């Protein structure tokens, strides 16, 4: 034990910047795993608390376009979208399910949120740009099955030793959404 510890004393031949990057990513991953657990447990009340009051939760519409027009693949804020929510609307989504009369989620769907490929693409000190991939799997009632892949472009705001989601843009890997609804959150 003692000798092992001696060998891994911080700074003993370890690149401090690489270590800081790893620690940061690990903290962000932990934050995302905890978030996913809240969603899969249908704990939306706790989940919406992870968002800042000025958050923007946005899922644009994606279009199959020619390669040279790929910059127009996604709709932009101010155009049509699937989700374009501020904090109040996100709170509304939690309350809708909690109301007990949200029939599309009663009986509740079973979901599993898998979050991978977490990358910090910018660190501005108070805020970080973080990209991650997701696979959200949903089964519902007897035989309904949905599988959504995509990525999330988040702005995470440092808040004590955790984060607030100050912006989330969700890019779904589908143009025609291949499910009957998006009563699941990402």
């Amino acid at each position: 034990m003692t000798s092992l510890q001696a060998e891994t004393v911080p700074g003993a031949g370890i690149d401090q910047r690489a270590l800081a990057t790893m620690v940061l990513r690990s903290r962000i991953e932990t934050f995302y795993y905890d978030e996913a657990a809240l969603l899969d447990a249908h704990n939306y009340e706790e989940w919406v608390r992870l968002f800042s009051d000025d958050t923007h939760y946005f899922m644009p519409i994606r279009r199959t376009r020619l390669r040279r027009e790929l910059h127009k693949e996604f709709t932009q804020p101010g155009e049509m979208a699937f989700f374009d929510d501020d904090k109040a609307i996100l709170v509304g989504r939690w309350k809708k399910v909690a109301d007990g009369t949200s029939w599309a989620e009663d009986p509740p769907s079973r979901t599993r949120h898998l979050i991978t490929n977490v990358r910090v693409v910018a660190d501005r000190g108070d805020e970080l740009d973080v990209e991650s991939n997701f696979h959200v799997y949903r089964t519902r009632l007897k035989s309904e099955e949905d599988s959504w892949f995509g990525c999330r472009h988040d702005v995470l705001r440092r808040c004590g030793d955790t984060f607030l989601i100050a912006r989330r843009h969700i890019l779904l890997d589908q143009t025609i959404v291949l499910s009957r609804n998006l009563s699941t959150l990402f």
Partner: protein
Amino acid sequence: MATNVDADHVDALVSLERGEIDRRIFSDEEIFEQELKQIFGRAWLFLCHETQIPKAGDFFETPMGRDNVLTVRQKDGSIRAFLNTCTHRGNALCRAEEGNTKAFMCTYHGWSFNLGGDLIGIPDSDLFYKGDIDRSKYGLRRVPQMANYHGFVFATMDAAAPPIEDFLGTAGRMFVDLVAARGVQVVPGIQKFVIDCNWKLTVDNVFDWYHGQITHMSAFGIGFLPTSEESVTDGGGAQDTLGRKIELRGSIPDGRDEMAVIAEYGHAHSGPTARAVAAHPLSGVQKWRERPEVIEAIGPVGMQLGGHSNIFPTCWLTKSQLSLRVPISPTRTEIWWFTFVDNDATPESRAATISQAIHVFGPAGFLEQEDGENWAQATKQTHGARSAQVPHLLKMDLGRGTVVHEHGVSRIESTTNEHAQLWTFHAWAQWMKGLSWDALHAATAPPDVI
């Protein structure tokens, strides 16, 4: 489970007198094939709005039945619609769903077509074809008829179909003009998603002002939709799973002041009157109804309409949206939402219209999340041989609807009712018989009582 769809059989599937529909029509494969032929192969179908393709070379793809159609803005500003299939060996000419192009080059052998559909290029035409090919014969196939009605582009696969103005008739033109006369443009981004249900159940719901208080109870519960203390609704004995009486929050409008319109070829409208809608706190000031050009276009009946219209078969118009219900299979339907803003909208009202469109309808909409599950489950139950024999009921206000024929339009003033749904199914049965256009027009002439 195949149903023999001859004329007698079709009449047995829809009863206008009893308000009953045979539920086998919601999953039967032969019926679906007949629908593609008799309805989607003949009716004028919506392709896009002209503001989606403003510049020369802009294109947008829309299905007509199982045919994929490209609507293309021409250099002279006109619009043409082509089958998206190469005239050489059939490859899809264009694989993007929208965009802008100078020409369409098929990626199989390179046959190239200009915006007008003319065949302008054949690789190695001299060396291999030795001049034998007559380019003028192999231009892109245009849809038999296409028309731009006040900015709304429609097409039909039937060369013998009546002109769009006649197909729409006074009522259908009024339904389109309720949106068009204001001067509108499409907001970029067409929402598309798939529901595992039969397309007719989605059309039935266009006119359903009965389901909101239950299906969308959660939207009322959280205050997303306004409720009224005064208009407390009678639960009528409805109970929840704990045996508690359902307390219905009074919805606005309250269903006491409604108007339905039924029309030739199956077009219909139903819902609260404009007066009832104006009482809705979210309706906003409907200043546009005071404009002379709007009054002129929609006429005295149009001035009173505040509900939902359907251009038969599947083009649903709300105040600021158009929803296509695209039949994919007997049990799969794509929903396409087009959203309109007024050309002269302030930035605030534009943003409000877009926000409402995103948060009410669409797959993540506070309302439409629930709708899809109802239609999917209703479709699924028709796979049971015995369950399918339980009729689909449209009996509300049945036999009590006095039809007023005035200003070229047939209307019914009543409380919430199911006349427009029943009318849609009646027209569906007439279309399925493969009648001549004249006979179809006569068979779908509105009665005096429904």
